[in-house]
């Protein structure tokens, strides 16, 4: 299970003159610091899939990056499967599988080599890496291109390999930052099926997305973040109940309702 409480992150603004008009108007800019994330809390139980929603620049990626240990929060606490991420980052990394939204592959290595490199970095044995890659290749439909160099891959192929790379060490919790962005319908379906298989294994999954239909299809709970703050936290049914119309309306409702405060 993953638990996030009162998370906050501020970045020092190197050159305030370079900020755009819109950034200057953002209430999160305070003096020489930009408070990208001000107060985010949510939790995800074992076997649950949590959909993280929010407009661009809301602080979703920053939140997930703090969870992944890539950056350190200025305040708040992060727990993954009983491990305090801040106190034991290396232990937390072993338990987490993280797919960054801006991830890349080593172009001159094949998909298989990319995945096994990270498997080795995680200390997985050669035998297990081989077995696990075969398994993942079945799940993610990667057999046809796995032994070719990555530089020639399509967006979908790259994303599948990146996902396989993120879970090669059999993490106990998985975080995916916009895993379906830019993918075609078939590849998207493969990724969604993969998330479903993780859920079946009882692994908590957090994924951020802009596609509400994916949330509807997969998620047990929903968290909406806007301007660095949690705006909604609850089950999918509660989220849908926010409006009588479509999920888009529910989403808009979370933003306006809180904005009025």
């Amino acid at each position, binding site marked *: 299970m993953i638990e996030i409480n009162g998370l906050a992150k501020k970045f020092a603004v190197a050159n305030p003159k370079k900020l755009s008009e819109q950034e200057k108007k953002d209430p999160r800019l305070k003096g020489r610091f930009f408070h990208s994330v001000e107060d985010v809390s949510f939790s995800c139980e074992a076997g649950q899939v949590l959909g993280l929603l929010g407009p661009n620049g809301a602080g979703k990626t920053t939140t997930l990056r703090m969870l992944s240990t890539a950056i350190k929060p200025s305040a708040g606490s992060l727990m993954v499967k009983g491990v305090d991420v801040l106190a034991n980052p290396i232990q937390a990394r*072993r338990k987490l599988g993280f797919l*960054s939204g801006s991830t890349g592959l*080593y172009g001159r290595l094949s998909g298989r*080599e990319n995945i096994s490199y990270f498997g080795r970095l995680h200390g997985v044995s050669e035998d297990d890496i081989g077995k696990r890659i075969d398994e993942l290749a079945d799940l993610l439909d990667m057999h046809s291109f796995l032994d070719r160099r990555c530089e020639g891959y399509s967006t979908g192929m790259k994303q599948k390999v990146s996902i396989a790379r*993120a879970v090669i060490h059999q993490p106990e919790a998985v975080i995916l930052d916009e895993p379906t962005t830019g993918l075609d319908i078939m590849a998207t379906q493969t990724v969604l099926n993969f998330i479903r298989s993780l859920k079946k294994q009882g692994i908590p999954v957090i994924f951020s997305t802009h596609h509400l239909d994916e949330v509807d299809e997969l998620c047990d709970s929903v968290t909406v973040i806007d301007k660095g703050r949690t705006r909604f936290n609850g089950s999918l049914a509660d989220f849908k109940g926010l409006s009588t119309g479509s999920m888009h309306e529910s989403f808009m409702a979370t933003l306006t309702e809180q904005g009025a405060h």
Partner: protein
Amino acid sequence: MWLVFRKELMELLRDRKTLFFMIAMPILLFPLIIGVVGFFTSKAMDEAQSKVLKYSIVGAQYAPQIADALRESDDFKLIETTADEELVAAIRAETLDFALRIPDNYAKPLLEGGQAKVELVLNDAGLNMIQQRLNKIIDEEIARKRKQAFSELGLADLQQDALLEPVVIDKQDVADKRENWGEKVGGLVPYILFILCLQGAMYPATDMGAGEKERGTLETLLISPIERHHLVLGKFFTIALAGVTSALITVASMAIWGLVLGQGMAITFVSEFMASIGAIDFVLMFLMLIPIAAIFASLLLSLSVYARSFKEAQSYMGAVVFVVIMPIILATLPGVDLDGGWAWVPITNVALAIKELIKGTMDYYALIAIFASTVAIAGAFIAFSIFWFNREKVLFR
């Protein structure tokens, strides 16, 4: 750490661009340059040597010996010009290669007429062998005139020699051939080696730091449970290996092709010189590449890690070349020797050591200073890389 090293090396070896710069270029390009330059120089020399020279002579009647010798030789062709004033114009117009003006006192015996000043008019810009070829004839004339004068004076052989050269300095050099030549080429060898080493390390360094940021693989790498210093050291060793390999391949290629192309007299000189250096010094010389590669690799890696993008890294690397040339040039300055303070100046000390090793006058205790200062510098850069990898800024700057 070796995990990172192995993977980086594999990636490097799969990159055609790197392989081209590291291996193909030194193997093919250097012989090509040497070959082309050699071919054209020797062709031009041959031409200057064997070309039939068109000449004109004024006052031939005073020096019939010269006039005859020139006329009889196949290498010279007489062009008759009427007026003395036209000579310069004719040479400019290239209808004439040179002209001689013989003074009237030439005909008289030496003791009577005094020194004869023969004027050689020619266009001396550019490669020509006119004077060298004329000297063969003139030298005979000098000998003839001397002999005539000496016999007139009735001087014995002993007196003749003494008169020609009253004092002779017999130079006895305690420096052997090796030390002598070592001083001359010793400054050049480190220069070539270092630049090649730097060049070879540059591309992989850019790729492994800034390139990793640009491709988006760095974030994933940093959240894997590997210690930062393992990551940095793995990359560091790959870059250092690339630098050393590149330098060695180029040097080997130059040596082999130099031997192949430079057959003849040069080859005995080169092989004698090489043989005099001795195995230990030779091995030490190449071991000297290790401190250099360590400094370069750590410097380049820290710049590459610091840079935001591939492009930014490349512009830093350009500046590095100038920074590195400075200490190498210092080492070639007279008076800068491998003792006292200089032994502690990084890069300069290695350049000096290589020179000393070639000369055969190496003070092996200086190795302590060399390795100590190298470890300090390389260690500082590696520490910076690790420090930077530990900061969030490495990802978002």
